[in-house]
């Protein structure tokens, strides 16, 4: 459960002490954005776009055992955060490599689905976060804040339909997982990951390294 931050005195020393006591919660952050739904809202009614959003959200969350890791949905975008502790406890998808392989397969299955108009295509950004805290400013809510969450959102600007953008930090985690099972980067979907790109994001002092994986 998230640490609830709520102090009415803006200068509260107690608040500072409380914030200092909150430990980081390292883990993997995903932003998944569903494409084309805005267009649909202008061309069709709720039964049309609502059905496709329902189908696509189910495809993403239920099939990948993610429901409890969805932090929030904002319009047609969802944010997932899987703390390392929770990842280790999962029965089936419990490594970074498996996370990437499953999200790749999800985007691939949706993009190549033989029947049109059942699902909507997606774009994804993924980052491994260390500077992240499980806090909320709103009673009863769950949320994660930190500069690495912001960076995951920034990485989404480099994604397009059917593309997964992964930070170099996450890529390294995946690569280590493969090394642990005596595999190299030519294994599975990692063989399709691009070389390294550099991006400058507003508010981020250093350049960010990232790679892309086309799943269409």
């Amino acid at each position, binding site marked *: 459960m998230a640490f609830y931050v709520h102090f009415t005195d803006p200068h509260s020393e107690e608040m500072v002490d409380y914030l200092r006591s909150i430990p980081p919660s390292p883990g993997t952050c995903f932003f998944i954005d569903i494409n084309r739904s805005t267009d649909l809202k202008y061309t069709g009614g709720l039964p049309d776009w609502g059905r496709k959003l329902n*189908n696509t959200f*189910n*495809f993403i969350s*239920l*099939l*990948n055992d993610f429901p409890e890791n969805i932090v929030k949905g904002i319009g047609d975008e969802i944010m997932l955060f899987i703390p390392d502790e929770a990842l280790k406890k999962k029965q*089936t*998808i419990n490594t970074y*490599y*498996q996370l990437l*392989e*499953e*999200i*790749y*397969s*999800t985007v*691939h*299955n949706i993009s*190549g*689905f*033989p*029947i049109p108009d*059942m*699902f909507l295509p997606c774009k994804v950004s993924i980052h491994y976060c260390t500077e992240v805290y499980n806090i909320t400013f709103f009673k009863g809510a769950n949320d994660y804040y930190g500069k690495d969450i912001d960076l995951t959102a920034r990485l989404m600007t480099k994604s397009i339909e059917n593309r997964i953008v992964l930070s170099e930090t996450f890529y390294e985690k995946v690569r280590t997982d493969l090394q642990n099972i005596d595999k190299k980067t030519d294994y*599975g979907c990692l063989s399709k990951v691009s070389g390294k790109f550099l991006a400058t994001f507003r508010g981020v002092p250093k350049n960010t390294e990232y790679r892309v994986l086309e799943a269409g």
Partner: protein
Amino acid sequence: MEITEKKAGNCIVVGIDGRLDTTNYSVLEKKLMELIDSGDIKMLINLSKMDYVSSSGLRILLMALKRITMAKGKFALCSLQDNIKEIFEISGFTNIFEIYPNEEAGIKAL
């Protein structure tokens, strides 16, 4: 996961036993592609002993369906457990695969 195969008339029946996920999908992919490449394009996948399938497993089944359809063959599934049936429904796969209640019915249809 264990994979079995047997001939039934002019079709091949492939059984999948256990969980199909990222840890083993490549084994199934290799097996199915070998069979298709060797001309086994009437294929029935028996899922009576499959107890879990992830997105990567679904991807391989979809790939096999596409390959066999392109080769003008027939691809079907049979004997899905309830939890697998639910996954296939959510993913829309019940709309694209021929699914039979048991192996006999599947072989007969192929």
